[in-house]
C-alpha cells in the first residue's frame, strides 16, 4: 500500500491504476518492446532451467530426492494428461505441455507478490514503470498461443498432407456443396483456437491483477483519514484503521482464491494445447 500512499499524495486513483498498467517499454505502438515482460519471462524461464539443471545433475533411478520427486510428479502428471488426450505418439507434445504448464504457472504466480512491492523497489532503483506479471501482457499470451498455433498448422499439414489440410477448409463441416461457407467456418474455427487460448489467459490474469490494484486503492480513501487522525482526530484514525484492515483482509482472500486461478489457467492452457495438437493429428477431421 505504501506506493499507493505516496501516489495518493500527488495522484488520483485513475492515475495510480494507469501507472500500474504501463509497461516498461521501448518504442511505441505495435513496434514496441516491453522490457519488464521480457525480463520476468526470462527470469522465470531461467528459474526453470536452473531447476532442471539442479535436478538433472543428480538424477537417480533409486530413491529420488525431494526436488526430483516434485519434478517427477509434474512430469508424470503431464505425461498422463498427454497419454489420456493425445492420440498416437509425438515426442514434442509432452515437453511442450510441461513447459507451458510450468512457465505459465510461474508467470501467473508473479501475481501473488504484493502488487506494489516490485514496482516500488524498481522506482527506488530509478525505474518508473514496471509490470511484474508477464501473462498480463498480450505479447506473452499471444506468443504462447501463436507458437501452439504454428505447431497446429505444421502438424495438420504433416499428418493430413497439404491437400488434406486444404480439403479440411473446403469440405468441412458441410460437405462439398457449401464450399464458401466451409472455408469461412473452418477459418473461424482455426483462428479461434489461438485467440481463445491467448485471450482467456490474458483476461483472467489481467482481471486478477486489476482486482489486486483495486483492493490496494482502499489506501487512497484511508490516507486523508490517516492524516486527519494524526492531527488528533480520533474518529478518522479509527476509520483509517478499518479501511486498512479491510484491505488486508480482501487482499488475503483474493490471493488465496487467486492461487486456484493461476493454477487453473496454466492447466487449461496446457490441456487445450494438447487437445488442439491432438486434433491436428487426427486424420479423419
Amino acid at each position: 500500500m505504501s506506493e499507493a500512499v505516496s501516489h495518493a499524495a500527488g495522484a488520483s486513483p485513475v492515475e495510480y491504476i494507469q501507472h500500474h498498467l504501463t509497461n516498461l517499454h521501448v518504442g511505441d505502438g505495435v513496434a514496441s518492446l516491453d522490457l519488464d515482460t521480457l525480463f520476468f519471462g526470462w527470469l522465470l524461464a531461467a528459474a526453470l532451467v536452473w531447476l532442471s539443471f539442479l535436478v538433472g545433475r543428480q538424477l537417480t533411478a533409486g530413491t529420488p530426492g525431494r526436488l526430483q520427486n516434485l519434478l517427477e510428479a509434474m512430469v508424470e502428471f503431464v505425461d498422463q494428461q498427454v497419454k489420456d488426450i493425445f492420440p498416437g505418439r509425438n515426442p514434442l507434445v509432452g515437453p511442450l505441455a510441461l513447459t507451458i504448464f510450468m512457465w505459465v504457472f510461474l508467470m501467473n504466480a508473479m501475481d501473488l507478490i504484493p502488487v506494489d512491492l516490485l514496482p516500488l523497489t524498481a522506482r527506488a532503483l530509478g525505474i518508473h514503470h514496471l509490470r511484474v506479471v508477464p501473462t498480463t501482457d498480450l505479447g506473452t499470451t499471444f506468443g504462447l498461443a501463436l507458437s501452439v498455433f504454428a505447431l497446429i498448422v505444421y502438424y495438420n499439414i504433416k499428418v493430413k498432407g497439404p491437400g488434406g489440410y486444404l480439403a479440411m477448409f473446403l469440405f468441412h463441416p458441410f460437405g462439398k456443396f457449401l464450399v464458401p461457407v466451409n472455408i469461412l467456418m473452418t477459418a473461424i474455427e482455426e483462428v479461434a483456437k489461438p485467440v481463445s487460448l491467448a485471450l482467456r489467459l490474458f483476461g483472467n490474469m489481467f482481471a486478477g491483477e486489476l482486482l489486486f490494484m483495486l483492493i490496494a486503492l482502499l489506501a487512497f480513501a484511508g490516507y486523508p483519514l490517516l492524516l486527519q487522525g494524526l492531527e488528533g482526530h480520533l474518529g478518522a484514525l479509527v476509520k483509517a484503521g478499518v479501511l486498512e484492515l479491510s484491505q488486508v483482509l480482501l487482499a488475503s482472500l483474493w490471493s488465496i482464491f487467486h492461487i486456484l486461478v493461476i493454477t487453473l489457467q496454466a492447466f487449461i492452457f496446457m490441456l487445450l494445447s494438447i487437445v488442439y495438437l491432438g486434433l491436428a493429428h487426427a486424420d479423419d477431421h
Partner: protein
Amino acid sequence: MNLSLYTLLGQIITFGVLVWFIKRFLWGPLLGVLEERRTRIADGLAAAERGQREQKLAQERATEVLHEAKQRAGEIIARAERRATEILEEAKAEAQAEGERLLNSARAEIEREVSKVKEDLRGQVVQLAVRGAAQVLEREVDEQAHDQLLNRLAAEL
C-alpha cells in the same frame, strides 16, 4: 494493454528455447529414469515372487524329508522292538530249557541218591536182620545154611 510485436517475438523465442531445454534436459532424462525405476521395481517384484516360490518349494521338500525321516524312524523303532521281543523270547526259552535241564539233572541226582540210600539201607537192614536173627537164633540157625534164604529176603526189601 496494446499488443507489442517485439514482446511477442521475444516471448516466442523464449518459449521455443525453454521447450527445447526442457525436452532435452528434463523431460527426456526424467522419463528415462522413471522407466528405469519401473524396470527395477518390476525386477524386484519378480525376484521376490521367485524367492517366494522357491521358499515354498523348499518348505515342501523339507516337509517331505521330515515325513520320510519320521517314517524311517518308526520303522527302525518297530524293528528294534521286534528284535527286543525276539531276544526276550529266546532268553526265556533258553532259561526254561536250562531250568528243565537243571531240574532233570537234580531229579536224576536225587534218584541216584535215593537208590544209593536204598541200597545202603537194604544192606544195613539185611545185616540188622541177619544180626537180629543171628542173635535170636544164635544157636539154631546156621549162618551159612540160611544165607541164601536171607539174601533172597534182603532183595525183596
